[in-house]
């Protein structure tokens, strides 16, 4: 029995920390906002603000500073709801110990926020138990990759993040799916909205297969398994290091680790093309499009999700052309 749902979208919020305080973590997948965003406003940030503000059952809403659009959305959300809103600083820099300490301090501050809402203070033992549980569950999620279509795998990750307690896993009796035909591609980019998961079907329909979902809602932001050697001695430190120190993101400064991760994945999974899904006013991803193309020397297809709707006709044309090129 939990003290209520805590909703958020940022992958740098450890679900384990929320759970350890007695709340149910819920990394939501927003749906399109009721109104189109103003020029300059990211459709995803608008959709998240809309969805979060309308969620009357949430015990709290957490927003982070990992991107400026989301940081500024926190004010909008707070003005539209009575649900407590917590704005957490997630540092963009990562190479100096001060940034790691800031992250940990912010996690502890978040913990105090949970306690102020009636949550339990997180004990070391409790946190270790929760972390081990999540580790095992994520191992199941990862293990299901070969047994699911790309869309189902991505949706299972999103579903797990949305409600880890409800995740039931995939039966292994059916065995792995036959390897999909078509050019292996990676889809990378920001978070997908509910309406956008169809892109994974469209890719496979037009001649590709998704060897990597590197979007923010996909496996890129699944934390790595915890370091079991440290876990018992310093669970919070291990948690912080795994999340802050381990999730690759182009918003980091410098964002060299993201490119290292992408390079590794391209090689490991034999990726032959990159599809970058981004929102029109997302500066973080848009600024990387040309650089990704120059660096990877692979065909790169930018898919501009505009106001959140991926126009099916335009998208299909681009995908078809892309796979004609990559074949």
């Amino acid at each position, binding site marked *: 029995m939990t003290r209520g749902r805590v909703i958020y979208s940022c992958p740098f919020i450890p679900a384990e920390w929320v759970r350890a305080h007695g709340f149910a973590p819920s990394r939501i997948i927003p749906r399109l906002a009721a109104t189109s965003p103003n020029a300059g406003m990211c459709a995803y940030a608008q959709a998240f603000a809309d969805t979060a503000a309308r969620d009357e059952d949430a015990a709290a809403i957490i927003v982070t500073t990992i991107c400026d659009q989301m940081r500024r959305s926190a004010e909008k959300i707070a003005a539209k709801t009575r649900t407590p809103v917590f704005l957490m600083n997630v540092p963009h820099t990562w190479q100096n110990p001060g940034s790691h300490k800031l992250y940990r301090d912010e996690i502890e501050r978040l913990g105090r926020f949970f306690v102020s809402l009636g949550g339990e203070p997180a004990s070391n033992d409790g946190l270790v138990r929760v972390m081990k549980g999540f580790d095992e569950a994520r191992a199941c999620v990862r293990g299901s990759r070969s047994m699911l279509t790309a869309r189902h795998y991505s949706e299972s990750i999103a579903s797990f993040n949305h409600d880890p307690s409800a995740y039931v896993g995939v039966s292994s009796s059916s065995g792995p799916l036959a390897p999909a035909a078509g050019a292996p591609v990676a889809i990378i980019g920001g978070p997908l909205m509910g309406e956008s998961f169809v892109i994974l079907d469209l890719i496979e329909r037009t001649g590709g297969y998704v060897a990597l979902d590197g979007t923010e809602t996909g496996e890129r932001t699944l934390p790595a398994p915890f370091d079991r050697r440290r876990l018992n001695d310093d669970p919070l430190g291990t948690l912080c290091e795994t999340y802050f120190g381990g999730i690759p993101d182009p918003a980091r400064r410098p964002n060299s680790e993201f490119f290292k991760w992408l390079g590794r994945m391209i090689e490991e999974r034999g990726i032959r093309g990159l599809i970058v899904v981004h929102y029109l006013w997302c500066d973080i991803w848009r600024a990387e499009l040309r650089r990704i*193309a120059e660096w990877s020397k692979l*065909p790169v297809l*930018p898919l*501009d999700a*505009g106001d959140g709707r991926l126009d099916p006709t335009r998208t299909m*044309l681009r995908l078809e052309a892309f796979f*004609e*090129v990559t074949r």
Partner: protein
Amino acid sequence: MVSVGVDAGSRAIKIVLLDTGSREVVASGIVAQGVGCNDLANDLLRDLMERSGLGPGDVTRVVATGYARNMIDFADTTVTEITCHARGVHRVAPNAATVVEIGGQDSKLLRLGPGGSVRDFSMNDRCAAGTGRFLEVVADRLGVALDGLGPMAARSQRPASISSTCIVFAETEIIGLLSTGTSPDDIVAGVQNSIAIRIAAMAGRGVVAPVVFTGGVAIVPGMDRALESALGCPVSIAPNPQFTGALGAAIMAAA
């Protein structure tokens, strides 16, 4: 025997018949796009076949391309206009390394590989401000025909600066420029430059020459010069630029 390429674009349907033996163009035709795209295409094909003394049994294969390619139900297969324009341009300009295609609704920049294959491509995403539609808007606003735009741009002494990425706001800018006494010549030059600059942005660093300009907008005088200025290299117009897509489709049908 002929292969057939159908380019069902947003503004016009173009068809090319290609002799599968000699690989020469037997006939080509164009009709305005409209309601009943499939019927329009069918009628055009029938007309071209009759005039060429051919019958249905002389067709080996039909490939459809373009915006409405999936509506051509007599096509054996569809291929995107990206691939088809690349093949078509390669046929008429074998040395082409970069293709710029500006249509009524979108624009594309293709980098070619061996044999007219596409190494990579970019397309404008957001708005008709980088397409032929913008030229239509300015022609309409100035009360001139499209083929009058070229001479106007050539007379410009100081092309106007158009900043909007959206064609609706860009039209507001045109109105603003007119009200402040900016010459129509400078406005037209500004619009052409604006389109060309967007193409150059798609090109990124280091455009690989030779650059060939194709698509319906290539026949609008002055656009090639605007592109040359923006890209920083010579630009040649493909022969019969409206037909390179259909030609490429016919080539793919004959393969």
